[in-house]
């Protein structure tokens, strides 16, 4: 343990990794939902995220600074994950009705027309109540928001 734990000097790498992880996940979480909802040609932001992720990883390889390398390495993988979310996972949530479709986005309008499960309801915009919803309640919630 002596060799692992310092007495005085602080090691900032952990804090840098924490900040990159938290803000990388936060940024991805918010921007993937927003961008997928608004953009018609989803391959464009997906490819941009892919290129940014690869760029960040290249930067993490090239910099000799450990803190900078950590930040680029972590942000890079989160942005690469965002590319997958934009291209595949979020559109699937919209098709299956887990994420709300945007009828003003022509791509989503098509999804709404083709997939009966797709909906404009934001199911998660409510507070937990402690008991499960019955099918009748779920139908009523759907009716009310149509």
């Amino acid at each position, binding site marked *: 343990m002596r060799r692992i734990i310092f007495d005085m000097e602080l090691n900032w790498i952990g*804090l840098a*990794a924490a900040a*990159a*992880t938290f803000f990388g996940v936060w940024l991805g979480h918010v921007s993937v939902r927003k961008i997928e909802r608004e953009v018609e040609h989803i391959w464009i932001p997906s490819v941009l995220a892919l290129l940014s992720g690869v760029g960040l990883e290249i930067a993490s390889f090239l910099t000799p600074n450990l803190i900078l*390398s950590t930040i680029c*390495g972590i942000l890079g993988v989160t942005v690469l994950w965002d590319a997958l979310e934009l291209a595949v996972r979020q559109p699937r949530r919209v098709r299956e009705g887990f994420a709300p479709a945007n009828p003003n986005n022509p791509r989503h309008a098509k999804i709404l027309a083709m997939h009966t499960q797709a909906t404009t309801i934001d199911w998660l915009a409510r507070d937990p109540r402690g008991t499960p919803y019955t099918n009748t309640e779920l139908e009523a919630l759907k009716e009310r928001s149509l």
Partner: protein
Amino acid sequence: MNWFGFSVGILTLFIIGLGFVWVIRGERYFGYLWWPYVIALGASCVLGSLFISNIWISALLGGFGASLTWGSTELKEQAIRGELGWYPFREKKILPPLVDVIKKWKAPSL
């Protein structure tokens, strides 16, 4: 070539992936009201990482702490998903200490 950032990035991806598992399981058995304790645990990990001189352990502990903190903000939405029937729902939860105080606070959701 500096492999450190890339390697930490890949390992962090697995730590974040682990978050999916513990948020789902944790909410099912313990409920979302544990969120202040999860934030405190996450912050403690990040703080602790400052005092660890080994760069690998420090970076991964920091990433793990951040992932715990993020996960605490996901618990409330996960509780709703369970109630909607998207995940198995368990009515009987192991509630946290001071649950009546925590209920009065607004659970974070980012």
